[in-house]
C-alpha cells in the first residue's frame, strides 16, 4: 500500500471526509459497545438521539454548541492563517473571569448599559489574553503554540485564585464560588422555559458575518493568502505582524465572548470548574467543520451532542462518562485519517518503491 499525491485536492473528500469520520466513529462505537456487552444500537441511540428528541433537548444542545462555535469561529481565522492558537481555553476563561468580575461589581446596578458593559468586559478579557500571545510572537518570535498552552494554565490558575480569594462570595461559607449574578447582569433568555440565551443570536450573527468577511473582503482574502503561502503574502505587501495580531485578537475576543456568555448565562456565577474543555473541543470543531462557518456550526452541534450523550448512556447503561472523550478523540483521529484522501490516493500496487517510509 502506498500513498500517491493527487494533482489537485479532491473536492469530494473535502466535503465527505467529516461524514466518513463520523460514520467510522459510529462503527467503532458499535463495535465497542458490542464487546462491552451492552446492546450496541440501543446504546448509540441513547448516546446520539435520545438527548435531543424534544425541544428541551434541542435547546440544551444549542446551549452547549454556542460556546464551542464562538471559540471555533475565532480559531478558524487563526488556523487559516496558520497561526496555531491553542489558547481558546485560556481566552475563554479570561473572558469569564474579567466579565464575571465586572458583573459582580455591577451586580446592584440597573440600567440599559449594564449588560453590554459586562459583555464588553468579557470580550476585552479574551482579547487581552490573545494580545499577549500576539505580542510575544511579533516582538519576541515566541512560538504561539507554546505560549498559548502556558497562557491557558496561567488563566486557569488566575480564575482559581480569584474564586478562592478576592471574588469569593463573602456570604458563601468559604466555598470557592462567587456570589450569584443578578438578573441585570445576566444574559436574557430567549424563552422562559429553556436555558438558551441571546448568545445564540450572537453566535449565528457572527457566523454569517465571518463567512461574508472571508468570502467578500480584502481582509478575508489576505488571511487566506497568508495561510497558503507566507512569503507570497509578504511579497504582496501584507504585514505579517498585523495579520497575526488581527486573527489572534479576533479569536481571543470571540473566546472571551463565549466565556462571559457561559458565566452570565447558564452558570450564573464564577466557579472553579467553569469550562469542560470547550477551548480544546473547539479545535476539533474547527477541523471537523472544514473551517467553514456553517460547517463549524454543524460540527459544534455534533461535539456538543457528545457531552450530552455521555450523560445519557451513563443514566441508561451505567457506562463511564469517559465515553464522551473517547468519541471526541476518535472523531478527530478518523477525520485526520480520512483527510488524507483529500490530497492523496491510496494505491495497493506493490511494484513501485514506497516513498513514505522515507
Amino acid at each position, binding site marked *: 500500500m502506498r500513498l500517491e499525491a493527487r494533482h489537485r485536492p479532491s473536492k469530494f473528500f473535502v466535503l465527505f471526509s467529516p461524514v466518513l469520520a463520523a460514520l467510522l466513529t459510529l462503527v467503532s462505537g458499535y463495535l465497542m459497545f458490542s464487546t462491552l456487552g451492552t446492546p450496541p444500537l440501543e446504546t448509540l441511540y441513547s448516546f446520539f438521539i435520545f438527548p435531543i428528541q424534544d425541544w428541551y433537548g434541542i435547546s440544551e444542545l444549542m446551549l452547549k454548541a454556542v460556546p464551542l462555535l464562538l471559540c471555533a469561529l475565532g480559531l478558524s481565522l487563526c488556523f487559516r492563517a496558520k497561526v496555531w492558537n*491553542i489558547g481558546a481555553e485560556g481566552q475563554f476563561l479570561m473572558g469569564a473571569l474579567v466579565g464575571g468580575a465586572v458583573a459582580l461589581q455591577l451586580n446592584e446596578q440597573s440600567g440599559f448599559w449594564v449588560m453590554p458593559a459586562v459583555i464588553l468586559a468579557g470580550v476585552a478579557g479574551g482579547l487581552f489574553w490573545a494580545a499577549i500571545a500576539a505580542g510575544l510572537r511579533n516582538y*519576541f518570535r*515566541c512560538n504561539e503554540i507554546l505560549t498559548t498552552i502556558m497562557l491557558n494554565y496561567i488563566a486557569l490558575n488566575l480564575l482559581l485564585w480569584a474564586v478562592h480569594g478576592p471574588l469569593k462570595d463573602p456570604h458563601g461559607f468559604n466555598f470557592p464560588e462567587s456570589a450569584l449574578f443578578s438578573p441585570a447582569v445576566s444574559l436574557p433568555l430567549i424563552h422562559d422555559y429553556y436555558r438558551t440565551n441571546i448568545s445564540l443570536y450572537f453566535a449565528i450573527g457572527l457566523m454569517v458575518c465571518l463567512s461574508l468577511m472571508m468570502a467578500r473582503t480584502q481582509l478575508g482574502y489576505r488571511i487566506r493568502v497568508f495561510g497558503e503561502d507566507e512569503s507570497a503574502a509578504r511579497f504582496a505587501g501584507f504585514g505579517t505582524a498585523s495579520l497575526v495580531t488581527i486573527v489572534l485578537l479576533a479569536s481571543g475576543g470571540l473566546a472571551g465572548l463565549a466565556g462571559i456568555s457561559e458565566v452570565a448565562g447558564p452558570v450564573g456565577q464564577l466557579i472553579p470548574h467553569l469550562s469542560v474543555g470547550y477551548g480544546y473541543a473547539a479545535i476539533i470543531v474547527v477541523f471537523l467543520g472544514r473551517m467553514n462557518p456553517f460547517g463549524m456550526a454543524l460540527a459544534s452541534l455534533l461535539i456538543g451532542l457528545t457531552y450530552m450523550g455521555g450523560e445519557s448512556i451513563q443514566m441508561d447503561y451505567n457506562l463511564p462518562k469517559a465515553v464522551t472523550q473517547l468519541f471526541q478523540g476518535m472523531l*478527530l483521529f478518523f477525520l485526520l485519517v480520512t483527510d488524507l484522501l483529500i490530497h492523496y490516493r491510496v494505491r495497493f500496487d506493490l511494484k513501485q518503491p514506497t*516513498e513514505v517510509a522515507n
Partner: protein
Amino acid sequence: MDIALLENLLFAMVRSGTPLLFCGLGVLICERAGVLNLGQEGMMLMGAVVSFIVTYSSGNAGLGILAGTLAGIATSALFAFIALFLRANQVATGLALSIFGAGLAAFVGAPYVGETIQGLSALQMPLLADIPLLGRVLFAQDFLVYLSWVMAILVFLVSQRWRAGILIRAVGENPQVARKLGVPVQLIRYLAVFFGGAMAGLSGAYLSLSYTPLWAEGISAGRGWIALALVVFASWRTGRLMLGAYLFGLSSILHLLMQGFGFAVSPNLLAMTPYLVTILVLILLSRPGKKRNKVLAAPASLGKVYLPEAH
C-alpha cells in the same frame, strides 16, 4: 535551616519532580527531532492505568512498569501513524491523543478504582544512604527514580555527545536537507516518538506505582502539559531539564511547605509560576534584533508536516 529539614525538602523535590523528568526527557528527544506531540497527558494516563492494572493483577511491579512503558509506546504509535505516516497536522493529532488517551484510561481503569497495591519500595544502598544531607536523596530512592537518572544520562549522551544527537537535531532543524544528506528522516522521527511514548508511560507508571500507589481518573493532574512547558524552559537541554523538573516539582508543593513555616501563599498563584517563568525563558531565548540563537531556540521544523516527496 537544619539538615533534617533540608534533606526532607530535597527528597520531596526529587519525588515530585520525577514524573516531570521522565515525561520531559521524552518530549525533549521528540521535539529535537522536530515532532510536537501534545498528547503527553494521554500517554501518561495510559501508562499509569496499564501499569497499575498489571501490577495489581500479577502482583509483580516489574511487569507493571514494563507494561506501562509498552502502553505509552502503543499510544504514541497511534500518534506516529497519523501524524508521521499519514502526515496529518501534529497539533490536532496530539490534542486528539490527549483527549482520547484520558478517556480510554478512565474507561479501562474504572473497575480498578479503589483497589490498592503495595507501592514500590525504596532500594537503600548500604552505607551510602547514611551520608548526611544527600545520602537518602541519592541512595535511598525506588527503582523508577534511579531509572529516571539513567535515562537522563542516556538522553544527555544521545542528544549532546553521540552522533545520533547530530542526526536527530538535523532532522529537527531541516528535514529536507537532512534527507538529501542520507539521514533516514522518518525512521528517526518514528523512533523519537516511540521514545517519547515510553518515557510518558514510565512517568505514568511512577505516579500509579510509586508516588501515590493507586489508580484514580486524571491522576496525572496536568503534569503532561507541565512537561511540555518544562522542555521549553530547559531550552531543549538535558541538564537544565533535570534542574527544571525538580524546580517545577518543588513549586507544585511549595505552598504546603510554606504553610509549615506559617506563611500563607495562594497555591494557585504559585502553581502558575512555572508557566510564567517558561514564557520568560522563551522571551530571553529570542530577543528581538539579535540573530536566532541556534543552540537554544526551538528546533526550526518543530510541529511542521514533513513531506518527503516535496523536494
